[in-house]
């Protein structure tokens, strides 16, 4: 155990703290998932040493250590991300310059917007004041159950502590800081945004372009496609409107569904929604992970149509997973007809290293030539649909979505490994987002200095002063977030007014 220099960390073990054993375990599970892989080099599944070195540690909670220490080796094995934006490294234990963080928190982090986003009202309401915020400090201490009366107090504390990141939890029935003096029943989580987590780790099994913590535009397509499918479904099927997509800082994305109706869902309803989305099932030893009956549910049919558009480029050309003999066997294992498979195998043995695009086409060509007497064309078509789903359908970390009291990293935090800011992604046009374009905290602090040094002399006192973020490449992201929040607040006020009218009360806070 690391030193308990922060008392709350020890308090985090108190029985009254753990909201439920179930949630605790799942939460710890999140953490473990991210670290276990980094600890198991060269397993039979072919993990190499650099693989998974950096957990995409977005959703860890309730634990005493963060994962950013104890892997100096990984820093040497620089990822393309790190190369693209070399970070000034002040200490080997964290990946960002200690001087950049104060500037970032002081001048760039949009605290006011984050407050508005969580609060849904101009003046502080319990939606913010009873909201749990958890800090991960730079010494890896984990500080849970923080809550703040105003955004100012929130900002002040962040600037004082300079956490490497902070997470957002549920709104409780009372102030989380008072939890120890409350009866157990009086302190329970009431609401939180419905959240989803898509992480590249889950795609490693089918990803061929990069390994481990690396990403490129080819594999980012997995995330882009996932966002498309999820966003449409959340809107069309569930009727949600306020969906915020956020880059996780390395190689994943989070969704925050902020509609009132989503925030009040209890665990069992969250679980139901998570399983609605679950199409890929089965563990390492189940050969076929998509098992759907026909005709398809309208939601799957629509998702399949979206995926089909990207399949050729993203999988057949970019990933090219079946080029090798071993890869080809993987494809054959997913096809239903033995005679056809034999013919395909013969053909591919003659032309080894034939690209996946050709192999995919071969299936239909040979099928049409009638090489198999047992072929059921309908089954074959369905198998091909299943393959598209298996390779492109969103792979969600469902546990994150299932619990009301699961904490998730706040938007606009800095990823401790990459230094990149967790900026919003436009969920309607995710293809316009490039993770390699996202500014790093080092870059931002350089930009702000540059702007200041240019404008110092020429600045006139009567000229309208720019907000600091407007001097940097963070600007479009903050503006997007601002628009999102103001739409949400407007909707929220409208609903409140309506409820007030219905209840015959005036609105006063």
């Amino acid at each position: 155990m690391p030193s308990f220099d922060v008392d709350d960390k020890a308090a985090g073990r108190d029985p009254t703290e753990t909201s439920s054993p179930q949630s605790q375990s799942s939460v710890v599970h999140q953490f473990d998932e991210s670290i276990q892989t980094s600890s198991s080099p060269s397993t039979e599944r072919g993990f190499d040493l650099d693989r998974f070195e950096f957990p995409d540690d977005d959703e860890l909670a309730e634990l005493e250590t963060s994962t950013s220490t104890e892997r100096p080796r990984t820093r040497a094995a620089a990822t393309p991300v790190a190369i693209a934006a070399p970070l000034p490294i002040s200490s080997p234990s964290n990946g960002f310059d200690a001087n950049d963080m104060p500037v970032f928190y002081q001048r760039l982090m949009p605290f006011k917007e984050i407050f508005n986003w969580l609060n849904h009202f101009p003046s502080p309401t319990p939606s913010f004041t009873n909201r749990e915020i958890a800090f991960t400090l730079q010494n890896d201490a984990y500080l849970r159950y923080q809550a703040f009366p105003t955004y100012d107090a929130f900002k002040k504390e962040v600037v004082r502590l300079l956490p490497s990141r902070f997470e957002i939890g549920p709104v409780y029935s009372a102030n989380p800081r008072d939890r120890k003096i409350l009866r157990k029943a009086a302190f329970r989580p009431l609401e939180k945004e419905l959240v989803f987590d898509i992480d590249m780790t889950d795609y490693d099994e089918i990803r061929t372009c990069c390994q481990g913590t690396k990403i490129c535009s080819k594999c980012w397509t997995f995330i882009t496609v996932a966002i498309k499918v999820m966003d449409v479904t959340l809107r069309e099927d569930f009727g949600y409107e306020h969906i915020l997509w956020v880059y996780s800082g390395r190689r994943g994305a989070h969704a925050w569904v902020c509609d009132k109706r989503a925030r009040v869902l209890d665990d069992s309803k969250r679980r139901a929604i998570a399983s609605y989305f679950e199409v890929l099932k089965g563990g390492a030893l189940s050969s076929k992970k998509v098992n759907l009956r026909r005709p398809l549910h309208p939601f799957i049919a629509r998702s399949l149509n979206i995926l089909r558009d990207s399949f050729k480029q993203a999988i057949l050309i970019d990933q090219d997973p079946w080029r090798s003999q071993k890869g080809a066997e993987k494809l054959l294992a997913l096809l239903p007809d033995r005679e056809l498979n034999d013919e395909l195998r013969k053909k591919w043995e003659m032309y080894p290293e034939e690209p996946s695009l050709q192999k995919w086409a071969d299936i239909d060509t040979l099928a049409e030539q009638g090489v198999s007497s047992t072929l059921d064309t309908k089954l074959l078509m369905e198998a091909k649909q299943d393959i598209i789903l298996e390779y492109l359908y969103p792979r969600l970390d469902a546990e994150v979505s299932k619990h009301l009291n699961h904490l998730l990293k706040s938007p606009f935090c800095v990823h401790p490994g990459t230094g990149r800011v967790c900026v919003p992604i436009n969920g309607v046009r995710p293809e316009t987002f490039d993770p390699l374009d996202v500014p790093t905290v080092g870059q931002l602090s350089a930009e702000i200095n540059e702007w200041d040094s240019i404008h110092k002399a020429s600045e006139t006192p009567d000229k309208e002063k720019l907000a600091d973020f407007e001097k940097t490449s963070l600007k479009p992201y903050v503006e997007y977030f601002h628009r999102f929040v103001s739409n949400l607040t407007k909707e929220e006020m409208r609903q409140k007014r309506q409820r007030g009218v219905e209840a015959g009360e005036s609105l006063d806070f």
Partner: protein
Amino acid sequence: MFRTQKKRALERTTFGQEVEREQAYPDRLNMYLTPPLSEITIDQFEEWAVDRLRVLGEIESCMFRNRNIRQVEQSVRPLLEKYLPLSPNSTNSRGNKDNQLEEERKKDHYSHFILRLAFCRSEELRHRFVKAESLLFRLRYTAADAAEQQTLLSKHDFGWTPVSEDEKQTLFDKFSFATETLTAPTDKMIAAENYFKVPFERVTELIESRRVYLSKGVAYVPSSLQLSLVLTEFSDKLERMLEITARALPRLDEDDRLVPILNHLSKGFVASEYNPDINSGVLGGGVTAAQVDSLVEHMPLCMRTMHQALRRDHHLRYHGRQQYGLFLKGIGLSVEEALIFWRNSFSNMVEDKFQKEYRYNIRHNYGLEGSRKNYKPLGCQQILSDAAPGPIDHHGCPYRYFSEDNLVASLEGMGVRDASTLRSVKEDVRTKQYHVACTRVFEITHKSLHGVKSLIGTGVGMESITHPNLYFDRSIQMAKEAQKIEQASDDNSVTAAAAVA
């Protein structure tokens, strides 16, 4: 609501002075929305509750055995007839005793509310009670005739909006899809079906399994799936009311007649799930880390799979560690030994990392950290319903998640080569009877222990596998038996040899 009613019932000491008007029970199906108001005797109070408990107990034990609904119905029906009969309205007209219907329904009504008092006190009890009561309600609802079902539906406002014929026409093609359990309805069936619009939050069960069409937050539920709607409504309401009762309960404490009965009742509802002896395990003296490898042959397939994965990868992911770790706890691995076991198993890991990131979790499972809950080994039911394994996981039930080829290969690895057994196992898997498959595998792999009668089997009246630790414990017990017999026969032959000499 509940409190005032109880208070009135409790404070009154003289009977019959201002007898509440008897509640009439025009219907057989009861959603138990209004508490009973009239007097009953203490004896009735206890007797009725115990009778209902017998029924619920049987239901729960069926659930632990992974019985399907028809099997549950078969084993519960005799108990229901004996302890908690509910006759249809038609019985009355045939000239039965006037009061019989009224009495049966009264008993049903009262016993339900008495048990609410007994089972509202902890989250676990509430959860089990809701589960068992909901299943009982389901049995009764399905057994009722259409008219009775209709009466129930019309009496309670479930907030369903019927889908108009026009809207149905425009959505026609959206209704034709298959689900995991049902084939797609034909056009003819859709045309004949009535659909209802419901906010999706109220039919989570149908959303979870994608059994209904969903648009803009509204679920389109065919009347054939109404049962699920009614059941959700039933269990949701019951759950809420139990919580209210739980909060009101402390104020009942002044009564010294009811509380002991209630305490006694809640103890009577013992979980019939297999409960291994954690302290010493079936082996008596506990198990050491070094012994685990030699015990693998007694483990069910799920645990073997994880053990092999652990030995191969020198790691096991979170859910695997939970499932396997708690199983090992169940066979008698102490926390000290567990720490040694996992430390040695993760041979590629640096000490510091293990201490920091894994030690806590292991100790947590033994109730030494955090909420200090002493976790029990997971049963089959839980393993089947908990987190499904992801693409690189090894936990879960192999009968459910392995592809057929991999399953057969694994079973052959356990020494199951007999073609007819493999065929039966595959058939069990196809019909989702995973515990039967596992039981069958136990039976065949323990056949060779000549002279020892198998404790587990698929035959009538034999115990079936409902818990991985049950598999292990029985396997060990049989091995001990066999050893004894062998020794005895050795002794015999020695004496025989001596006699010859």
